């Protein structure tokens, strides 16, 4: 059995910039081998959190342990276990692909023979072998992102922090990066991924935290988060000509709200199976034909919107 332990433990971490509380007293832990998603809208505190964990920013309060090393009092030791691919960071454009990788390997103190071997392996795996002598300046954004991954992975980190790794990439590059992330995680690498792309988080992450306005609103597996908002499950119906009125459907037991446009209707319910049967019976009794019918759990995007809007409503109240 794999040795699973908390590789990251965040304890009451806060960051205040010029009176603005960017991260507010957040706590969570990540097990080794997890692919952990950190979701939030722009300005929610994702990058600030990653920067604190990477030792770039000093927390205003609280701390975190990375592989047992305190990010404040043992910053250099904790940084030896991680590699970071920041959102806006870049490679050294005037260095070649090979020089960029060697530089990062050298900064982590990797012996020469091992770094060469590892770099060759990574260039092969990430499809950059034929460009090793090319200046980074000549690479496309997608290739630069792959080079950044190579440079991050050459030190064989235990934890990889990826801050919006596919932001601004085309579909092919994004899929390639997703494939690489999955492979790395499959090989046992712990990955901390920040994103505001719900589809990406849903595809990749085994567990996600939703951060909003500096606070963690929810943290769990995507499935459990969906289940946590039972009332956001729904039944979708497309009627062929006539349709049931929203008022009729709203009276059915378990239905919390109904959205209706043209011949389409969506009924939010905690019991989608039962509601679906009731809608079908009601339609049949009124001789209304149904073209399409389906029940759905909320997507992670809906979970995300639910939690972020819920926070806003709570704040207003």
């Amino acid at each position, binding site marked *: 059995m794999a040795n699973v332990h908390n590789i990251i433990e965040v304890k009451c971490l806060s960051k205040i910039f010029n009176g603005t509380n960017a991260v507010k007293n957040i706590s969570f832990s990540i097990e080794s081998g997890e692919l952990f998603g950190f979701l939030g809208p722009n300005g929610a505190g994702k990058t600030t959190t990653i920067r604190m964990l990477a030792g770039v920013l000093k927390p205003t309060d609280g701390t975190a342990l990375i592989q047992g090393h305190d990010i404040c009092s043992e910053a*250099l030791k904790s940084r030896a276990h991680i590699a970071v691919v920041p959102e806006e960071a870049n490679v050294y454009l005037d260095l070649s692909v090979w020089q960029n990788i060697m530089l990062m390997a050298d900064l*982590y*103190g990797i012996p020469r023979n091992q770094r060469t071997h590892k770099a060759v392996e990574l260039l092969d795996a990430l499809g950059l072998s034929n460009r090793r002598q090319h200046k980074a300046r000549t690479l496309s954004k997608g290739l630069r992102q792959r080079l950044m991954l190579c440079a991050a992975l050459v030190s064989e980190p235990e934890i990889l922090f990826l801050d919006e790794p596919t932001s601004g990439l085309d579909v092919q590059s994004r899929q390639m990066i997703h494939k690489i992330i999955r492979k790395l995680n499959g090989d046992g690498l712990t990955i901390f991924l920040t994103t505001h792309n719900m589809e990406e988080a849903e595809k990749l992450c085994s567990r996600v935290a939703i951060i909003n306005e500096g606070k963690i609103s929810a943290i769990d597996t995507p499935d459990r988060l969906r289940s946590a908002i039972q009332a956001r499950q729904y039944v979708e119906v497309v009627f062929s000509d006539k349709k049931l009125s929203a008022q009729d459907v709203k009276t059915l037991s378990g239905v919390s709200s109904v959205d209706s446009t043209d011949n389409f209707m969506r009924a939010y319910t905690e019991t989608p199976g039962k509601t679906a049967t009731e809608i079908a019976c009601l339609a049949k009794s009124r001789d209304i034909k149904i073209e399409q019918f389906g029940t759905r759990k909320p997507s992670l995007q809906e979970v995300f919107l639910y939690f972020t809007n819920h926070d806003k409503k709570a704040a207003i109240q």
Partner: protein
Amino acid sequence: MTVYVENTNSWRFQVHGTFVILRKNILLYYLKPPVLIFGVLFPVFFFLAFKMGRPITPENIVPGMVAMALWFTASSVGPLVTPWERRAKTYERLIATPVSLQAIIAGDILSGVIFGACLSIVPVILGLILTDAAVDNLLFLIMGIIFGAVSFSSLGVLLAAPPASSPSNIMLLSNLVRLPLLFVSGIFIPISQMPFWARWIAPISPLSYAGDLVRASFGQSGYFPLWLSPLMLVIFTAALMLGAYIFHRRWRAKGL
């Protein structure tokens, strides 16, 4: 997964980091236009402006030229590296590595020292070949160049600390500091012949002491006692390095 260096706090690992930073800076920044303009062209044109039409024997100019070349070259690398890396978005990755901020700063200072020391040899050689100037005391020359280079390079790195949106803003700041100090440090006019107020300012410039040492190495008399110049350069270096560390630490995450 392997952690190659368990003890990243060890001096050996951090010294290694300093040399990696040095190598990176040599590869990336020695031939950047701002370094060549402010570090190489500036002293050449100052020399021409200083020499032309003045009744000074060429051998008397050589020590001042060496000190001026050292001043501009050693202090020109530092103000470029950090602002350039901030703008190119490479700085954040660098400071997230296990190499300490002190080691990064030391690497930047060392880059300026090597650049300055190597290029200031050029006016020494030209002076020895083309004029009647002769080195009387090689030790003073070496001390002047080395101590001066470390001190001036530390000043350059200190000036690179403010989080500027563009490297040109830092270059402007560095010239606002370097040019006035050049004129009060006895390079063009001996300190003893400068106005009263300038003689009061001269001691707060590290260039005054390096210039005095270089002048002494060519057998010319200086303004300060000979023992004072190396001591003051060491004190300046310590203060500038400390200042560089404090301000880089304070502003390192600003403007990322």
